[in-house]
């Protein structure tokens, strides 16, 4: 088997395991990464919401915010895990597509 084939398979396994990145923090009651708090958390932490942050934070409306479907607050962990896997598949598909395109544009031909 070619090494790239093995690596693609490995990537598939990693995608299936990806919900661990959601479930482990949940299990150990860990919150956001440092410096990546939402507006409400900031207010709790420092007692106010910095004005510029409040204005800029909602700047971008991502289609799959935080690797979940929109409006999935309060949904169960199995729903969130499935959304996480779908996000990984979508994200990897786009990442692979974009980097193949960039690679093809840049790479030397015929080698």
């Amino acid at each position, binding site marked *: 088997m070619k*090494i*790239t084939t*093995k*690596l693609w398979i490995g*990537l598939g396994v*990693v995608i299936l*395991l*990806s919900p*661990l*990145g*959601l479930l*482990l*923090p949940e299990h*150990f*009651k*860990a*919150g*956001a*990464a*440092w*410096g*990546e708090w939402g507006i409400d958390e900031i207010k709790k932490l*420092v007692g*106010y919401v*910095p*004005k*510029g*942050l409040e*204005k*800029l*934070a*909602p*700047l*971008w*409306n*991502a*289609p*799959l*915010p*935080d*690797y979940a479907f929109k409006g999935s607050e309060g949904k169960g962990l199995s729903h969130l895990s499935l959304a996480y896997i779908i*996000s*990984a598949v*979508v*994200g*990897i598909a*786009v*990442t*692979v597509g*974009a*980097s*193949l395109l*960039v*690679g*093809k544009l*840049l*790479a*030397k*031909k015929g*080698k």
Partner: protein
Amino acid sequence: MHIPDGYLGPATSGFFYVAMLPIWTAAARIVKKTLKAKQVPLLAIGAAFSFVIMMFNIPIPGGSTGHAVGGVLAAILLGPWAACIAITVALVVQALLFGDGGITAIGANCFNMAFVLPFMGYYLYKALSRNAPVGSNRRVWAAGVAGYVGLNAAAFLTAVEFGLQPLLHHTADGQALYSPYGLNIAVPAMVGEHLLIFGWIEAIVTALVIKFLQKQAPELLQEGRG
């Protein structure tokens, strides 16, 4: 380590976009010269791996979370410039599709994770594995150390960028306008958790994959890349 929108003031966001422009340009120019057509799938795999490894949030019980980047691994296999491109692609996709990292912070996030991290890791790996045979254990150790230091360097820079915000932007009565914590809090918090936990994840992932490739595809570890 993905700085969201609203945490950096316009000066910092703008500065890092401007700083990244010549780096992205150089990366495109150098990769154009060095990347072979048959390496393109590896570039895509590197970008995809980096994308997904960042989804593995590791918890500090009752505290925050963090993750590896896989960027030093990409740099060892593709060279630092191609790794810069691969990680940039992953970070842009994360920001646009998943809101992981802000649109305004793409410059800064790329500077930390797609530039400093792979370059630091790559040259450290090079120095530590100098003259070591491709199949040697020294390569595995060098990869681990490079992963650890690369991730921590990126975490340190991210912390400095956060920590400068209250100095740069605040109201007359001392309220921060953007990221609220100064260097005295941001640096120990970010660097501490990465030194203690997340850096080890990057180290282990990098070392294990290099060990796997020594057996499966030693040709990928030959010198003279990048």
